[in-house]
């Protein structure tokens, strides 16, 4: 695969504020850079790891719209952020465990 030669995208991840979310987990390092070939599912897993949450507990959103797991960063950038300056702004929400 040789992903380390890939072009990068630079992201900023803000927590989606929700009254239902009682979790205190907030990302300390919110600026993220990765390969254009990384997918939403990879980003989700890395976030869960950094937030100390089990996998599948984080959702990634753009403009309140959850992003599909297999979307790549390149697809995301070209469809939502083309021509705009870095970083691309995303939100994350932590799923309620009771649901």
């Amino acid at each position, binding site marked *: 695969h040789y992903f380390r030669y890939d072009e990068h995208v*630079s992201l900023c991840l803000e927590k989606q504020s929700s009254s239902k979310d009682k979790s205190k987990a907030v990302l300390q390092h919110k600026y993220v850079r*990765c390969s254009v*070939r990384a997918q939403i599912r*990879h980003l989700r897993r890395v976030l869960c790891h950094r937030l100390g949450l089990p996998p599948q507990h984080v959702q990634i959103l753009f403009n309140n719209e959850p992003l599909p797991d297999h979307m790549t960063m390149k697809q995301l950038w070209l469809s939502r952020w083309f021509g705009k300056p*870095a970083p691309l702004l995303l939100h994350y929400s932590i799923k309620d465990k009771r649901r």
Partner: protein
Amino acid sequence: QEEEEQEADNFMFEFSDKPLLPSYNLQVSVSRAPCNWFLFSDVLKRLKLSSRIFQARFPHFEIATLPKAEFQRQVSLSQVLAQDEALESPELAPGAAETVELVHYEPELLQLLGSAVEYEAWSS
């Protein structure tokens, strides 16, 4: 070698609490595949070091030079960089030197810049 293979199969994620320095995907010579670079001037500014001190202290980081026009040509081909923003650095202003100095984007340098690095397998 095993480590290298593993690295090649994994995505690297860089995390920082500060806005990231821009990185550029560039081919610096015909015999080499494109890879990622920082502008050396950006790195020196962030670390508050002179070029001389940086190179004396960290001789293992790779520095390369590219003609400014070639740098700008390659950057203009990127679909994920906003062009005016990409050319904002003082080093790229008209009248500055005709070449740009680059430093290779690698995990050890990211840590020096205060970023954390995480790997995620493609297949996961």
